[in-house]
Structure formats: structure tokens, C-alpha cells
């Protein structure tokens, strides 16, 4: 492209140079021809005059011999001409005589190296062809003509008649001779021009190209910068008429460069002097003139009508007598959005902190309260300002301080990520508020602890509810126990009846022995002892019964497995015995202690045994009427207690809802037994489950954690 242009330039320059010199040469040439024509004319006329003079001269002598006069004239003429030299290289005089209709050339004089014979005797007759000037001369015309001579060479010929002698003279000269200096000059000029042009071009190229390419490069850079600039760059005149509008500006405003250029920037873009979006622009609010300044935040109007937050830098450039403005416009939507989002986030976080339904406190590592949210202030009855002057030790119950400190230490040494503990806070009036405190530590970038953050949840209500639930559960368990007792009533009555019968019988026997008048103290005394034993036995049954059905608060204590089982069996056997069922206990040796509510666990076991008894009652002709009560260790931390019966078992569909409340297979059952049992076991950290006994019947097993202190 660049080369082409240079080439074109060179060509034009060459053409101009050549045509200028050509014109000059042509004009010179024409002048030369004119001069030559004049000179030839003059030469010819001179010759004519000469001939005329000579003929006059010779006419005297020619009186005697006219032929001789002619011959003499010619001779003289020839002689004269031989003396006359310097008529160019090709200049020739031709003398011809008219013979009738023919032209007879008398002689022709030329340079010595001319091939034309100088003497023609007799005169040579030649056809008219190639002798046009001579013909004219013979005809009596005079003039100059450019024509072809007999050689076919282009010549300039001046012809002049010698009227008296009937002769014609032609002075001719080869055009080539006239042209040759001009041709030479032309060639020289052309060559010189070409040479100059060549060197000139070379020089221009040599010097100009780097400059041009430098300029082009700069311009390209500028253009590239303009078009690829991330910022919109708009130039306007001092009236605001847009003169350039780069690609980024197109993207920002939605107008194409063509649409934008020529319009007033304020009408097209409507820059609002207020930063977006704190004041939504209204009609006529936009400024008409762009004030200069750096990095102002303004609001722009996109082609599609939406407002864009912009950052604009306007600078003025004085160019000649015009004042230009350059606007650098940056779309800061994203920055704005993220700023807004950040603000929102901050606001959200603040609101979350403030409005959180749990108390949140931020403390320094020293325990000074830095921030506390509304909930926490409300909880403790302090105002925010009051709280911020406090140390955490003043708002936590003194009995809990040690616990809090030890937990905080764990957080600091990264022993745990978060702590959760029950703490009593002291509110402004001095009342204790049971709370759940969840704490963690905020670290800086280098993992150094910075602050404590604590979530405090008021547990009063929850504790009350829990208490209610517990009481409710206890009541329910109690009712269930009563119900179980109801089911066992006959067996218990039987069991009390037995010692009573024995007592009555013993007493009767003693009476008889004494009445018979032969009291045998050896017989009576031991019997009396037996009576008291039996009374105690009956009392024992009643005591167990009372313990079992007493509505007492749940309390746990450490108990040996064997003791638990012995107690349970002594009670459950009452019932089993009545139903003629044997309870076989299978206890692993060295069973550990457990930490339980004895009555509740007894209730569970008795409930399971009762179910087993009922289930076995349903089966007629049962040979092996025994229930196995198996206690064994399961893993390191639990024991498993299983009640294995050979009863009717359960259909699979019942097994599903076995533990649901009010599910019962007994006509008079409450349906609470297993439900309560499960919740008792769960409360003890164990698990109660049912499996079917492969030998027929059911297996109910539950686990209990081993007392960790043993």
C-alpha cells in the first residue's frame, strides 16, 4: 500500500518531469524548425538571387552561346556552392529544370560524403515521386514543406522558383539532422530525470520511509489505543459537538461512532453531575456544559434509556484557536454494583448481627466487650453503652466463670474450633438466666487469635419446656407403670397370698400344737420365726410394689448389673410364677456397673417380661415355658439386656409400629409400654430394638452405656 503510493508518486513526478522537459524540448524543436525553415528559405532565395545574378552576368556572354550561359550559370553555381560550405551535414541544394512536363535535375550539392552525384550530365530525369518540393518550385511556388525525399527520408525542404530560367531550387535538410540535437537533449533530459527520480525516490525512501512508518506506527498506536481503550474517549469542541467517539464509548453509551459524531455530547449522552444512584436524575437536571475535572462520578444515559454510573475526566486542549475537550469516560457499573453489594452486605451483616434472635457478643481476648447486639442487651437488661464498658466476668455467674475460662483457653490453643456450654448470665437486676453459650475465636491472617465471638441463647424457656416434658414423661411412665401393675395385680395378689396362707397355716398349726397341751417349744418357736419371715416376705412384695408405682422424681445412681437383675427378677417372677413361666437369667460374669434410674430401667425390663409372658400365654401347649433374660457386654462401652421369649412372636407389619404410642395387641393394653420403654432407654443413651427369635417368639434387646466411672 505504502509502496504503491510511493510508486504512484514517483510515476507522477516522473511524468511531470518528462512532460515538462518534453514540452520545453518540443517548443525548442519547433523554434529550431522555424529558424531552419527561415534559414532554408533564405538559402534558397539567396541561391535564386545568385542564380539570377549569374544568369544576368552570363547573359552577356550568352548572346553568343545560350547553352553556354546555362552551363556557365550552372557551373558557376556549382563552383559557388562548392565554395559555400556549412550548410549542415545534410543540407543540400537541388537545382532542377523544367523540361516540358518533366523535371530534370541539374545537380545536387551536398556534403562531400553525399552519395548523390554532384554532376548529372545529361540531366537525370526522375519521376515526380519524392520530388514534391521541386514540383512546387518548378510550378513557381515558394514555401517550405516537410516531406519525404527520394530516399524516403523525412526532410525539411524550402523550394523557390527561378522564374526566368525555368529552374527550381530546393534547399532541403534531413529532419533527422534537425531533430537529432533535440533527441539527444530529450534523451539526456529523460535519462537525467529518470536518474534524478530514481535517486530522489531512493533518497525519499531512505529518509522518508522510516519517518512515514514511524508516523504511521504512531498513528496506528494511537488508533489502537483509542479503539481498544477500556475507557470511552470522546473529543468535542468547546460547544460540546462530538468529533470523535471511540469503541469503548460506543459500548458504554450504545451509540455508534457515526451516530455520535456531530451531536452535542450533552444532548446525546445527558451526563448528570450527580453520582449514580444516590440521586436519580430527573428531566432537565443534566448539565449542559461539561466542566473540566478529574474522575468525577456522574450518571450517563445509555441509548436504550437506562442510567449508567460513570466516572468522567474532562480536560481541555487548546489547539490553534480552538478549544477542544477530551472526555475520558469509564463505566463504573460493576464497581458501583460491587460497592452497592458491599454496602448491602455490610448492612445485611449489621442487621443480622443486630436483629439476630440470639444474643451475640464480641469480646477482646482480655474479655472486654466490644460489641453486643440488641438481643443480648435485651436479655441482660443493659443498654448497649452500659454493656460496652463491661468485662465478661461481670455478666457471667461466678460459679460458671471457671468453666468459661477453661473452655476459652481451649479455643485459644486451638484445641477446639467452637465451644458450647451451659452458662448462667447475670442480668442487670441480678437474676440468673440460664443460657447456652456457643463460642469461637476469630483469627487474623496469620492465625493469631483476635477476638472472641459468642452466641448466647436464653435457655430459660427451653429448660422450662424440657422440665415440663420430663415431668410429662415421668407422669406417663408412672401411668404406664400403674397400668403394668394393673396387669400384674393378680400375680402380685397371688404372691402376697402365698406368705399370708403360710402364716395362717403356721399359726393354726401352732395353735393346735399348743391346744393339744403338749407344746413343743422346739416345734413352735421355729414356726413363729417362720411366720415372721413370711410376713416380711409379704411386706417385701408390697414394698417392691410401692417402689415401683411410686411417683417419684427421676434420679440416677450407680448400680451393679447383677443387683438390677436380681431386683427385677424377684419382682417379675411374681407375675411369671403366676403364669407358671420360668425366667432364666443368663448373666455374664463380671458385668460392669451402670448409671441409671433404677425404677425406670426396671420398668422397661418388667414391661418386656410382661409382654413376653402375655405372648407366651397366647400359645397353647407350649412345652418350654421359659423366658431368657440375658445380660452381656456389647463392645467396650455398653451392655445389652435381652428378653427372649418363645411366645407367639409378632407379624412383620406389627413390628413396624411396635414402638408407636397406643399400639397394643392386648385387649386391655394402654399401648404405652414399649413407647415409654424406648424413650426411657433413649434418655439413658441406649437403644431398644425388636428382632424375631429364630426359634420362635420375640427378642427385645436394649443397650445401656457402662458407667464410665467403673
Amino acid at each position, binding site marked *: 500500500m505504502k509502496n504503491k503510493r510511493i510508486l504512484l508518486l514517483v510515476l507522477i513526478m516522473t511524468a511531470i518531469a518528462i512532460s515538462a522537459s518534453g514540452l520545453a524540448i518540443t517548443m525548442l524543436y519547433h523554434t529550431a524548425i522555424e529558424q531552419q525553415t527561415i534559414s532554408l528559405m533564405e538559402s534558397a532565395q539567396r541561391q535564386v538571387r545568385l542564380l539570377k545574378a549569374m544568369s544576368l552576368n552570363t547573359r552577356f556572354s550568352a548572346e553568343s552561346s545560350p547553352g553556354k550561359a546555362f552551363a556557365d550559370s550552372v557551373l558557376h553555381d556549382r563552383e559557388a556552392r562548392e565554395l559555400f560550405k556549412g550548410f549542415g551535414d545534410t543540407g543540400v541544394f537541388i537545382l532542377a529544370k523544367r523540361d516540358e512536363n518533366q523535371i530534370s535535375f541539374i545537380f545536387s550539392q551536398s556534403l562531400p560524403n553525399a552519395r548523390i552525384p554532384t554532376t548529372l550530365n545529361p540531366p537525370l530525369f526522375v519521376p515526380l515521386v519524392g520530388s514534391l518540393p521541386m514540383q512546387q518550385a518548378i510550378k513557381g511556388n515558394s514555401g517550405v514543406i516537410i516531406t519525404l525525399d527520394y530516399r524516403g527520408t523525412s526532410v525539411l525542404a524550402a523550394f523557390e522558383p527561378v522564374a526566368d530560367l525555368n529552374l527550381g531550387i530546393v534547399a532541403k535538410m534531413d529532419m533527422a539532422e534537425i531533430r537529432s540535437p533535440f533527441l539527444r537533449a530529450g534523451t539526456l533530459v529523460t535519462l537525467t530525470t529518470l536518474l534524478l527520480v530514481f535517486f530522489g525516490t531512493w533518497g525519499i525512501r531512505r529518509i522518508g520511509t522510516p519517518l512515514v512508518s514511524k508516523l504511521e506506527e504512531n498513528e496506528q498506536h494511537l488508533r489502537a489505543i483509542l479503539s481498544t481503550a477500556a475507557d470511552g474517549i470522546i473529543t468535542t469542541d468547546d460547544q460540546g459537538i462530538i468529533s470523535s467517539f471511540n469503541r469503548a464509548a460506543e459500548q458504554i453509551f450504545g451509540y455508534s461512532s457515526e451516530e455520535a459524531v456531530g451531536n452535542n455530547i450533552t444532548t446525546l449522552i445527558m451526563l448528570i453531575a450527580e453520582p449514580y444512584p444516590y440521586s436519580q436524575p430527573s428531566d432537565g437536571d443534566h448539565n449542559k456544559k461539561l466542566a473540566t475535572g478529574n474522575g468525577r462520578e456522574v450518571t450517563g444515559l445509555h441509548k436504550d434509556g437506562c442510567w449508567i454510573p460513570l466516572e468522567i475526566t474532562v480536560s481541555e486542549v487548546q489547539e490553534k484557536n480552538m478549544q477542544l475537550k477530551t472526555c475520558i469516560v469509564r463505566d463504573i457499573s460493576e464497581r458501583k454494583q460491587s460497592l452497592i453489594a458491599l454496602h448491602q452486605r455490610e448492612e445485611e451483616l449489621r442487621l443480622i448481627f443486630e436483629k439476630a434472635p440470639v444474643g451475640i457478643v464480641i469480646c477482646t481476648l482480655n474479655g472486654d466487650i466490644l460489641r453486643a447486639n440488641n438481643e443480648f442487651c435485651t436479655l441482660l437488661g443493659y443498654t448497649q453503652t452500659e454493656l460496652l464498658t463491661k468485662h465478661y466476668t461481670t455478666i457471667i455467674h461466678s460459679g460458671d466463670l471457671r468453666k468459661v475460662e477453661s473452655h476459652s483457653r481451649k479455643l485459644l490453643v486451638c484445641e477446639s474450633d467452637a465451644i458450647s456450654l451451659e452458662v448462667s448470665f447475670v442480668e442487670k437486676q441480678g437474676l440468673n438466666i440460664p443460657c447456652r453459650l456457643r463460642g469461637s475465636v476469630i483469627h487474623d491472617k496469620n492465625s493469631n487469635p483476635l477476638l472472641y465471638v459468642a452466641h448466647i441463647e436464653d435457655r430459660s424457656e427451653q429448660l422450662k419446656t424440657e422440665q415440663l416434658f420430663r415431668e410429662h414423661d415421668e407422669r406417663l411412665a408412672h401411668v404406664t407403670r400403674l397400668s403394668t401393675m394393673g396387669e400384674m395385680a393378680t400375680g402380685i395378689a397371688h404372691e402376697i397370698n402365698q406368705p399370708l396362707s403360710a402364716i395362717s*397355716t403356721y399359726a393354726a398349726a401352732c395353735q393346735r400344737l399348743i391346744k393339744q397341751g403338749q407344746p413343743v417349744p422346739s416345734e413352735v418357736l421355729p414356726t413363729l420365726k417362720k411366720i415372721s419371715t413370711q410376713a416380711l416376705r409379704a411386706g417385701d412384695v408390697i414394698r417392691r410394689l410401692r417402689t415401683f408405682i411410686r411417683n417419684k422424681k427421676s434420679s440416677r445412681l450407680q448400680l451393679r448389673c447383677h443387683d438390677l437383675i436380681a431386683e427385677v427378677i424377684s419382682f417379675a417372677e411374681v407375675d411369671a410364677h403366676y403364669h*407358671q413361666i420360668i425366667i432364666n437369667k443368663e448373666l455374664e460374669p463380671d458385668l460392669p456397673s451402670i448409671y441409671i434410674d433404677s425404677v425406670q430401667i426396671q420398668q422397661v425390663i418388667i414391661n418386656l417380661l410382661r409382654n413376653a409372658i402375655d405372648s407366651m400365654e397366647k400359645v397353647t401347649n407350649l412345652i418350654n415355658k421359659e423366658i431368657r433374660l440375658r445380660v452381656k457386654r456389647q463392645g467396650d462401652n455398653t451392655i445389652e439386656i435381652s428378653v427372649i421369649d418363645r411366645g407367639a412372636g409378632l407379624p412383620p407389619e406389627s413390628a413396624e409400629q411396635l414402638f408407636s404410642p397406643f399400639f397394643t395387641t392386648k385387649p386391655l393394653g394402654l399401648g404405652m409400654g414399649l413407647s415409654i420403654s424406648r424413650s426411657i432407654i433413649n434418655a439413658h443413651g441406649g437403644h431398644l430394638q425388636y428382632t424375631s427369635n429364630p426359634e420362635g417368639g420375640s427378642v427385645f434387646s436394649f443397650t445401656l452405656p457402662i458407667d464410665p466411672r467403673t
Partner: protein
Amino acid sequence: MQSITPIVFIVDDDEAIRDSLGLLMKSVDFKHEIYHNAQAFLDNYDSKRTGCLLLDIRMPGISGLELHAKLKEMSLDLPIIFLTGHGDVPMAVDAMKEGAIDFFQKPFRDQELLNRVGQVLNQAQYKQQQQVERQQMLNRLESLTTREREIMGLIIEGNGNKVIAADLGISQRTVELHRARIMQKMNVNSLAQLVKEGLFLQQ
């Protein structure tokens, strides 16, 4: 001759009950034996011994009712008095239908129980007496010759000596001799006595 003193067999799984019952029986001089369950009783029981079975109705293993059934199965005719807890009355009624003598609900009045046991023992004694007598009679009957037994049958049917003699084709004198021998062997003094014994044996 074996002892005919009937025995009170006490079977109860409750030690105090059986011990006190034993003492009660002892206080009235009833001979008694104590078993702690049905199986122990069965293992030791001799069918020739009679008396009264004081049986607890509810026992693990073989229950009172089951023992009753077993005894019936073995055709042992031991009178049974059931001892029941309260609430077992329907069971006791069933037992009565099955042939038990009586049932007592614990705790029972000692006198009533002793009276009933006494009765049963008396009956048992009487029955055993009869048994013994019958055995004696059978022994006597067996001491008769075939001819004598034939003649005794005819006598019991009320035939006179003449008729017997005619029937058997022997002399009247011979019949009288046989008759005297029969009376002597059967240890009876009158015809009426002989007839009574004969009928008793035919039962």
C-alpha cells in the same frame, strides 16, 4: 398285711406353704409327705399308697391340673384337694369337673381344710379297708375248689341243696358237705353272709 394308714401328700412349689401345711398335718397327726413339685411326687408315688393329695394348682413345670390329668391317665385313684390362689376359682371348678374332691382358696381356714382332709382320709381308709376285705375274700374264694366255687354260685343264686344235688347229679349229702366246707373256707356263719360276700366280689 400292709399298712392302711392313708397319707396326706402335699405338692406345692412354695416352700413356706408346704412347710406350714406339713406342720398343720403334723399337729393333727396326719401322716404326710411333702413334695416341692409334681415330678418329685410322681417319681416317689407308689400306686398302692392311698390318702389325699393336697395340690397347688399353679406350679412351674407340671402344674397341678396337669398332674391331675396324668394321675387319671395312669388310672390312679388318689383323691385330690386343690389349693388355689384367689382368682383361680374357674380353674378349680374345671378341676372339680375333672374329678377333684374339693378346692381351697388360700389362705384357707385350717379347720375346714383339716375336716375335709380328715373326711377324705377316712374315706380312703374305708376304701382301703374294703379293698383289704375284698382281697381277703378273694383269697378265700381262691381257696375254694372248682366244685366248691360252682356250688357256691348256685347257693348264692338261691338254689336249695336238693336242686343243686339234682343239677349236679350228686347226692344231697355231698352238697351239704360242700356247703359246710364253703362256709368254713369263706369264713361266714350264715347263708346271708355268704350271699353278701358273693355279691361284693361280683362288683
